[in-house]
């Protein structure tokens, strides 16, 4: 009886399997998975810490999306490999009017989007107008945060916008008008967000139909399946269930074609898991190796590519709650109390530097003529006494569950800063919270008196750093609580709007001096270089300070 039942069950199982097999057909093509063409660059798999949120860079704010989009798309302006300096991209050259409000771009000819349509002046203006005419959920800071940070408002005029108009004066000339002169142009156009996308594909796949649903946003088909640019790689597929994005070489690329046949980005969130995948030969490289692993990776024969540091780590001083922190002497005492040299040597990776300005020395207006605030605990104590703040008690926030390129190990950095501050008699109430679990929220709402934070630069202008930090007096530093808060804001705006480059640079030099000697809303601590690592078989990858490496020059030796 049992045997009969077993046989029946087995027969049923086999029948079901046969039926399912008949229904399930392989979708593989006839090729062996390699794309054709003259180049035989093979496949490279590069592991990243996260999967892309989507593939339309205009709606993106995450590094994983930008990494992918940088291979698929190109902007009018690009960044010179290995630097944050602007260079011609899809625009061969450009010039601005004397008042800095009109920019003329001469476009590269003979460029086609991946869908075969022409890249031309009309396409450029289509993109600009698309960005400017966002409505509904497209105006949420979570969706178009980069536009709002950099260009301001939209066509509905609720908030002033930097963008005014775009006109195609001929097939390959674009005239871009802005409402005021800004130091951001033309560098800002090198940001991945402003990459040129195919107007036909944008319309065909309803690229603007982003909608708020429940407590989040749903993106249209274009952003998830049909990104169409002009870049050296084309989107092939995104296997969400496996966390892999596959790009293939664009055989019709206008420039030097990519060397690789296929480029795969694979999401491995855990840093140790990425390292082990490299050691086992499962991947050819990965992003953001922990500084503690750098030496080990190098001695194992891998290539560690250290990016030039293009970030800032600072100790923020919130002036909202503790009146004593509005006294410059107290803030200066805090600056003198911190041993930045020791912190850089003991806690940060090779290539890290003590920060003297609020941005790295490759950015316009950087100056060494600023008040340096050397490590001097006695001076710190003296300043506290002079300010009558010997019993200064403040809270200090440090974040958990996060590492940032400028802050590889928040706990260790905090430990050193805490020791320094307590050594000069400052009483600290320590608050540690998860990065997304209350830390940023508390810091932004002004609850933190002292806090650890920083910034990764997007492009090479001072405004991208100091403008983001201090231009709004109601910022996390609470500069509006001091009489100079509004002045600082005006000075930042004035420097950003100055059309004359030499004058502008001088204004930033002066601003940097004042930021250190008169305002000191935070203590700049360090610039720390993030890295990426590839096996010895990989060549042609140039580390970017903006972490936006392009893989078209990469080749991989078969091992």
């Amino acid at each position: 009886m049992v045997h009969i039942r077993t046989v029946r069950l087995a027969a049923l199982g086999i029948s079901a399997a046969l039926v399912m097999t008949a229904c399930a057909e392989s979708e593989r093509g006839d090729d062996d998975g390699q794309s054709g063409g003259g180049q035989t660059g093979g496949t490279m798999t590069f592991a990243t810490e996260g999967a892309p949120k989507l593939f339309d860079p205009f709606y993106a704010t995450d590094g994983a999306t930008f990494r992918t989009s940088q291979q698929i798309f190109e902007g009018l302006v690009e960044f010179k490999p290995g630097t944050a300096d602007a260079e011609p991209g899809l625009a061969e050259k450009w010039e601005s009017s004397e008042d800095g409000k009109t920019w003329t771009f001469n476009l590269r000819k003979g460029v086609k989007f991946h869908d075969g349509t022409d890249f031309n002046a009309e396409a450029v203006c289509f993109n600009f107008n698309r960005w400017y005419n966002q409505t509904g959920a497209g105006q949420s800071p979570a969706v178009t945060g980069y536009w709002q940070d950099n260009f301001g408002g939209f066509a509905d005029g609720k908030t002033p916008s930097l963008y005014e108009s775009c006109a195609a004066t001929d097939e390959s000339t674009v005239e871009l008008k802005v409402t005021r002169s800004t130091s951001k142009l033309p560098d800002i156009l090198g940001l991945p967000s402003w990459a040129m996308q195919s107007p036909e594909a944008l319309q065909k796949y309803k690229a603007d139909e982003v909608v708020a649903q429940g407590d989040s946003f749903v993106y249209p088909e274009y952003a998830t399946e049909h990104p169409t640019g002009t870049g050296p790689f084309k989107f092939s597929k995104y296997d969400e269930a496996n966390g892999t994005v596959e790009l293939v070489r664009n055989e019709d690329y206008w420039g030097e074609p990519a060397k690789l046949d296929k480029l795969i980005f694979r999401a491995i969130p855990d840093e140790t898991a990425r390292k082990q995948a490299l050691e086992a030969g499962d991947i050819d490289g990965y992003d953001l190796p922990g500084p503690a692993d750098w030496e080990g990776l190098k001695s194992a024969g891998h290539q560690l590519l250290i990016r030039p540091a293009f970030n800032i780590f600072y100790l923020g001083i919130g002036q909202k709650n503790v009146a004593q922190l509005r006294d410059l002497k107290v803030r200066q005492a805090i600056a003198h109390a911190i041993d930045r040299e020791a912190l850089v040597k003991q806690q940060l990776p090779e290539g890290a530097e003590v920060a003297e300005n609020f941005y790295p020395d490759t950015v316009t207006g950087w100056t060494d003529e600023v008040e340096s605030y050397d490590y001097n605990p006695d001076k710190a104590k003296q300043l506290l006494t002079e300010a009558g703040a010997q019993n200064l008690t403040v809270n200090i926030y440090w974040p958990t569950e996060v590492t940032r390129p400028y802050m590889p190990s928040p706990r260790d950095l905090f430990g050193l800063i805490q020791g320094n501050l307590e050594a000069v008699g400052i009483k600290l109430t320590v608050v540690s919270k998860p990065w997304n679990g209350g830390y940023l929220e508390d810091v932004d709402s002004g609850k933190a008196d002292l806090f650890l934070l920083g910034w990764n630069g997007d492009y090479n202008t001072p405004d991208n750093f100091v403008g983001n930090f201090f231009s709004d007096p109601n910022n996390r530093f609470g500069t509006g609580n001091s009489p100079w808060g509004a002045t600082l804001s005006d000075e930042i705006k004035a420097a950003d709007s100055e059309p004359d480059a030499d004058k502008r640079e001088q204004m930033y030099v002066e601003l940097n001096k004042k930021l250190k000697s008169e305002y000191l809303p935070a203590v700049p601590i360090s610039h720390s270089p993030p890295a990426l690592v590839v096996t010895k078989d990989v060549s042609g990858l140039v580390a970017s300070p903006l972490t936006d490496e392009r893989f078209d020059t990469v080749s991989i030796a078969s091992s």
Partner: protein
Amino acid sequence: MLRYTIRRLLQLLVVVLVLSLLLFAWLRSLPGGPVSALLGERATAETRERLTEELGLNEPIFVQYLKFVGRALTGDFGVSTGVQPGDSAAEIFVQRFPATLELSILAIVIALAVGIPLGYLAARRRGGILDNLSVVSSLIGVAVPVFFLAFLLKQVFAVDLGWFPTAGRQAGGIDATRVTGFFVLDGLLTQEWDAAWDALRHLILPAIALASIPFSVVFRITRASVLDVVDEDYVRTAESKGLTSPVIRRRHVMRNAMLPVVTTIGLQTGALLAGAVLTEKVFAFPGIGQALALGFERRDYPVLLLLILCAAGVFVLINLLVDLSYAVIDPRIRTRGVR
């Protein structure tokens, strides 16, 4: 039997409803939230406030909950803000559940395939070398944290020896057709043998690590049950009737010894899910466990809510199936019926 099943299914509904309310309130009482995750360092007090309002997170919790229930009744469980932003929570569940299920099934199969025969042999050779060795190994299985075992297996067999892949469900370069979401099964159904083999290779180490949790319990309970059963009168009667050893083993010893083992498998579901969170993290395995870990880190309310609810539902369902399977295994229950 039918009434019993219906009653248990209704219980499941109540469990899910009550749990959804508790979870909803608890998740929203956690510090931070999706606004920080979405805006990062770029946030200002103004953008933070705007986004909080846009997402409806400024409304009273009960209003948010009622809206959630209203949407959930139409099949909309919300959209991910952190794990896979833009994807619906339901889509993420459908995509990742097969991964965890595939992993858990293989883990259970390994645990049973090793635990039951070993438990039987250990009981039959009580006090012998095999028995002692097996007991010690099962104790190690219980004592060693699954996270550590996963890490160790990965380091030795994937990194050092290179026998297995270190991370993920399938190598990136494999052009695999997706049918059911179970990668091994998909490979078999579509006859993409390389894809099936590759997916299986990705499963083996995490499944062994995860199997350490049920293995120890299955082994020890099998051993204890067999020891109990072999001394029963009916086994002696069968022996005196002259039945052959395989028949006695199959019909009288194992069949009766299996009841507590099956119960254990049901109870182990929760432990397996907890173990999956850790194992999936070590092996960067994109399943429910990894989504839960990422969801907590990024405060992804819709994903956390749906995944935890589904996990609870699966736990209750499996225990229901276990109860129902008693009837299959034990004829006494079948004939007596279930109240």
